[in-house]
């Protein structure tokens, strides 16, 4: 007869409790032999072993209570929590460990998976069937593009701004390349593997060779929030200087602007203020908060955003030719993004919308880049067999 503690098919919590009954050594062995968080179908079990008076799971999934309490396993210093997580999901989280009324947020010591962002790193758990896409990982066969650090003079802001220029492998001055302008571009490089993805997708012919200009605002919360100076910076400073410097196709159809969160707001607001300048938009988890009645509750930093989105909803015009919109279903912004899609469709633009079982984070944005970029710039994959 199979010992319930060894039966992989049964729920892991009773097995864990059975191991507890057998003593500390058996529990240690059980923990060492299993991966935590433990994913079994739609069920994920988190385990924390260590001194604590209270343990909680902190996540950023809209609709769930912000912190979920662990249960202490009897007579041990191990704590357990089981939650439901749909297949192919990703969830970023931290553990709250409280002692003597003081809580600390830590990464899950038993979890080897982490996701980085500009504020540090979180633990991340993958739902059944999720694996980081292979095209986000460096492919030794893919020829590498280059990144050059430069500064661009902004007449609009009266300063010089750092940018990075991505040139594809086999870059030639004699060719003409499409242009992709990326908001928070340095972060996309660092946290969303943008260079690797561009290299891989170009190598796989899913994207044509293109030039990407990576920008990073010194004050994104203001400049990205429908600041007309930022829109003019892109249209009057950045793109003309890049067109003078690089062999670019000088046509809106070969020009895209993209961003995530406030970067998506900046992209849409620029396209709205200068319709037709960018022929393509890639908007990820845009902070497109609007109000139908009364005021919003997102704090003053959102005031200009809400004002812009409200105005955009009244008179969207036709900012661009095609747009790819993505958002995680675990984000509070999902409602706003879903609401934006029919509006964009009514403008006559080509629209593709993709939802993901993920949150407001860089790996969600990373995982949507293949579909988004190849939708806007389809590569020669279908016709090239080298």
């Amino acid at each position, binding site marked *: 007869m199979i010992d319930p503690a060894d039966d992989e098919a049964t729920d892991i919590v009773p097995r864990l409790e059975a191991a507890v009954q057998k003593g500390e050594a058996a529990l240690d062995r059980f923990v060492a032999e299993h991966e935590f968080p433990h994913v079994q179908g739609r069920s994920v079990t988190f385990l924390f072993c260590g001194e604590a008076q209270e343990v909680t799971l902190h996540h950023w999934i809209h609709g769930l209570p912000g912190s979920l309490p662990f249960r202490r396993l009897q007579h041990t210093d191990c704590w357990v929590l089981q939650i439901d997580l749909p297949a192919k999901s990703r969830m970023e989280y931290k553990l709250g460990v409280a002692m003597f009324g003081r809580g600390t947020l830590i990464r899950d010591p038993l979890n080897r998976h982490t996701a980085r962002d500009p504020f540090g790193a979180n633990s991340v758990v993958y739902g059944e069937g999720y694996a980081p896409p292979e095209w986000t990982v460096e492919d030794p066969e893919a020829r590498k593009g280059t990144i050059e650090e430069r500064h661009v003079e902004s007449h609009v802001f009266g300063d010089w701004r750092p940018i990075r220029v991505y040139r594809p492998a086999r870059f030639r001055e004699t060719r003409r390349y499409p242009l992709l302008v990326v908001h928070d571009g340095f972060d996309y490089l660092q946290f969303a593997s943008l260079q690797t993805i561009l290299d891989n997708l170009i190598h796989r012919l899913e994207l044509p060779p293109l030039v990407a200009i990576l920008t990073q605002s010194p004050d994104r919360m203001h400049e990205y929030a429908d600041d007309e100076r930022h829109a003019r910076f892109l249209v009057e400073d950045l793109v003309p200087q890049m067109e003078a410097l690089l062999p670019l196709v000088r046509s809106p159809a070969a020009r895209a602007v993209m961003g995530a969160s406030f970067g998506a707001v900046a992209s849409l607001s620029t396209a709205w203020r200068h319709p037709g300048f960018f022929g393509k938009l890639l908007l990820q988890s845009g902070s497109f908060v609007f109000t139908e009645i009364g005021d919003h509750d997102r704090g003053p930093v959102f005031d200009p955003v809400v004002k812009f989105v409200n105005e955009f909803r009244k008179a969207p015009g036709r900012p661009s030719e095609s747009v790819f919109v993505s958002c995680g279903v675990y984000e509070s912004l999902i409602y706003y993004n879903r609401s934006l899609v029919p509006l964009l469709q009514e403008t006559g633009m080509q629209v593709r919308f993709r939802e993901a079982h993920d949150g407001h984070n860089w790996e969600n944005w990373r995982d949507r880049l293949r579909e988004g970029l190849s939708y806007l710039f389809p590569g020669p994959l279908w*016709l*090239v067999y*080298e």
Partner: protein
Amino acid sequence: MLSTAILLGPQRHVPIVREAVAAVVPRDDRRPLAVVTAGWEERESEDQELREHVQRPVKNLEVWARVERIFDKDPELLRAMRSRHDRLRTVQELYRLRLQGLMDPVKELLRRTGDDDLLAPARHDAMAMVHELDEQHVRRVAAIHAEFEARWHPAARASVQREKRELHRHLESASCLLLAGGHVSVLLHRLRLFDLFGLYGDRPVIAWSAAAMALSERIVLFHDDPPQGSSYAEVMEAGFGLVPDVVALPHAKNRLITDDPLRVQLLAQRFAPAICALLDRGSRLDWTSSRWRGSPGTRRLTESGAVAEVGE
């Protein structure tokens, strides 16, 4: 139809062209190998790795650059070819739209189980409609080419004739013709402009990836997991038809999901009785003595949904 041809998979990482050349050109034949790398487009001249690999004299025919020169001298022809390109693209889009509507039910019928007496004729008829559409498409594309030829007489244009004469000289003094892959449409249309195989005659040809597709009767574009859009294979147009009964599927490991019997069945049944040959790295398919012979490890799709060696 050629008497001798060798079709290969991609050659970038593990090239086997040298062995293929040895099979058709004696070691002491020091005449150059004529090479076409037009499918690489503006990288056409970057053939150093190939030269080092084959260890024989090589003459790159510079087919891509020759057409560029013709375009410089003959802007009318350039405009006409661009216009043809736009028409071909539109026809392909219209075909794709109709294909989607026909392939969905074929796929569903293959998936269903039940009374075979009822299912088999339904499957047969649904697939027959796909065959008919594929053939209609080939005829439409051929009509566009015929119209182009009749109106613009590309072969009679001075700039084309000049390049053709030079190509003929190079081909006459070559021991063998090697055709590299790349952009299949660019390769096909540029070779056709010069009637390259007419100039070369019935002598051995070694072709890989897109060039293998171009030699066959039907050029089939395919990818089971494209980043966006439909994943149904499409007929692009007729190839040169210099090798019979084969659909060349280069880079199959990257482009086809061969462990899905339904997908394999769909492709194999659609193009039967032609061999759906998986031309991966190291694959080699020889056409000699009016029959196909696959080197060990060269695979094909079967109508039952499996993958098998091509064999003898």
